[in-house]
């Protein structure tokens, strides 16, 4: 009996292999359109950007090799880049982890609610991230005169007497960008968490209760988190990538360029050189650094998350 199943398995495996080999060409045909576009505008573009970062390409003259000049200039001469780098790291280190945890905590809490409420709450929390330029409202909230909602609130309650110039004062700019980014940050990762939590195996919770889990916090730690690892890893990628890529929020809220470059980020610096000054070699160097930072921080976090709970 056992032998028989093994032989049929072997046979079917062989058949499968043959069938798959026959099918392959269709697979490649089907994938071709996507892969051509993806290959050109993502893979090839990244390679191009790394190659051009060693040249002084400016769209007009033929590029010539300049070695590490662009990188030396970035780190030693370009003070604005250092500010942008510092701001980007501050923004990413604060908004990345906190928005990740926030997305999970909110999703977990929503999951405790009855179904109808779950639907409504998901909508409320997800809506900001898809509402286009509605974050411009924050500009009204933090506008510098006494009609700004933040100022009028503080004045009414006697906390300040003079309106604060929120968006013109380097002291506040970065913090306001962080607040707005939090508001926008419950996006794809948040949905992934909601979905993951809904599909957890309920039997494990019953088994856990028998095994002595006494409250929801223990449940969260011992059952929910380990089971959610795949979603958590996906969510981490989404949040890290978006937190390093903050640009539009800064330029729309704090102005471009912002006062003393207080809201300047690497992406904005890149768009400045690539999209306005057309110093493509220099812009490519900025892009390469950004690429390295995003990729390496994602890979490190992935390695770390993979280790959690094993």
């Amino acid at each position: 009996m056992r032998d028989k199943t093994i032989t049929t398995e072997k046979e079917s495996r062989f058949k499968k292999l043959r069938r798959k080999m026959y099918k392959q060409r269709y697979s490649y045909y089907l994938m071709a359109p996507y892969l051509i576009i993806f290959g050109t505008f993502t893979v090839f573009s990244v390679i191009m950007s790394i190659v051009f970062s060693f040249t002084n390409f400016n769209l007009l003259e033929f590029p010539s090799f300049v070695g590490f000049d662009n990188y030396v200039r970035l780190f030693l001469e370009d003070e604005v880049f250092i500010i942008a780098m510092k701001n980007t790291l501050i923004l990413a280190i604060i908004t990345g982890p906190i928005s990740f945890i926030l997305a999970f905590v909110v999703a977990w809490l929503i999951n405790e609610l009855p179904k109808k409420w779950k639907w409504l709450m998901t909508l409320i929390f997800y809506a900001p991230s898809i509402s286009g330029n509605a974050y411009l409202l924050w500009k009204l909230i933090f506008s510098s005169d006494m009609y700004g909602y933040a100022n009028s609130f503080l004045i009414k309650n006697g906390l300040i007497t003079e309106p604060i110039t929120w968006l013109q004062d380097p002291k506040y700019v970065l913090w306001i960008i962080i607040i707005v980014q939090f508001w926008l940050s419950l996006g794809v990762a948040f949905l992934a968490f909601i979905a993951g939590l809904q599909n957890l195996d309920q039997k494990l919770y019953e088994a856990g209760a028998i095994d002595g889990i006494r409250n929801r916090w223990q449940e969260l730690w011992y059952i929910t988190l380990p089971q959610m690892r795949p979603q958590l890893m996906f969510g981490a990628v989404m949040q890290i990538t978006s937190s390093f890529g903050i640009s539009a929020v800064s330029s729309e809220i704090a102005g471009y360029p912002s006062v003393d470059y207080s809201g300047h980020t690497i992406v904005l610096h890149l768009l400045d050189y690539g999209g306005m000054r057309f110093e493509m070699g220099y812009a490519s160097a900025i892009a390469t650094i950004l690429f390295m930072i995003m990729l390496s921080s994602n890979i490190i976090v992935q390695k770390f998350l993979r280790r959690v709970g094993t």
Partner: protein
Amino acid sequence: MDKIAKLKKIMSKDNVKIKTKIKKKKRLNRSVAGNIVILLFLLIFSVFSAYPLIFIIANAFKPLHELFIFPPKLFPTDPTFKNFSDLMILMGTTWVPMSRYIFNTVFITVVGTIGHVIIASMCAYPLAKHHFPGKAFIFTLIVYSLMFNGAVTSTPVFMIMSWIGLIDTHFAVIIPAFAFPLGLYLMKQFMESIPNSLLEAAKIDGANEFRIFWRVVMPLSKPAWLTLVILLFQQLWSTQGAGYIFSEQLKTLSYALAQIVSGGIARAGTAAAVSVIMLIVPVTIFIISQSKIIDTMSHSGMK
């Protein structure tokens, strides 16, 4: 026969009862105090999340004198559609007719989204269901491409676009959007849940791969389409085409509306109306398709 039917009925009723009992029992380990803490926490955060949106919608219906009262109020006391009609008038005075901006945005969004859903699904199906040399490599590249954003490639994309002569056309925005990696990733993960037996059944019935893809896989991945649609639609709908589109008659609605918003304080009401227009479309799509999107996202995990 009758008896059996009755018996079945009774049994199924019993089953339902048992099931509901289990459901009630499922809420294990829940304390009242904990519930209250959770509700409070959610309440605070949902106010933070919803307040600005409600505010901007309310502002769109406020007459000008109510926008600048001190202290500001949330709801209009004298709601009006004047902001929207002002917007219409403003649109009439632009150099390029407003209908042109609307057409441009609709064209980019519709072509980009439909093309993306089809092309990404075509690529996702073999990645999810077939085994072929190079599969792991391709998928790894796609996962890595989730780890950096479009800004990294903006400079080379601009150069490639100018080489192939697509700068200053809608396709400079549309074509890169076709290969939106997150869409492919989610589609592939979703398609893995399609039972193989269905595909094999179709094969036995004599369908070739293209037919299986179009007739079996595509209809079954409808929830995932909606997810791809909402993710890309929202991006393209608000795109300004900055850096790729320079001719005024090719620019998008979002660009035109940004110009109106930058008109300053006197246009605060109109600006709110603009924001409402920009947010109403993606949010409506999400409201309609929320359960389908959640269904897709449950397959999003990384291994």
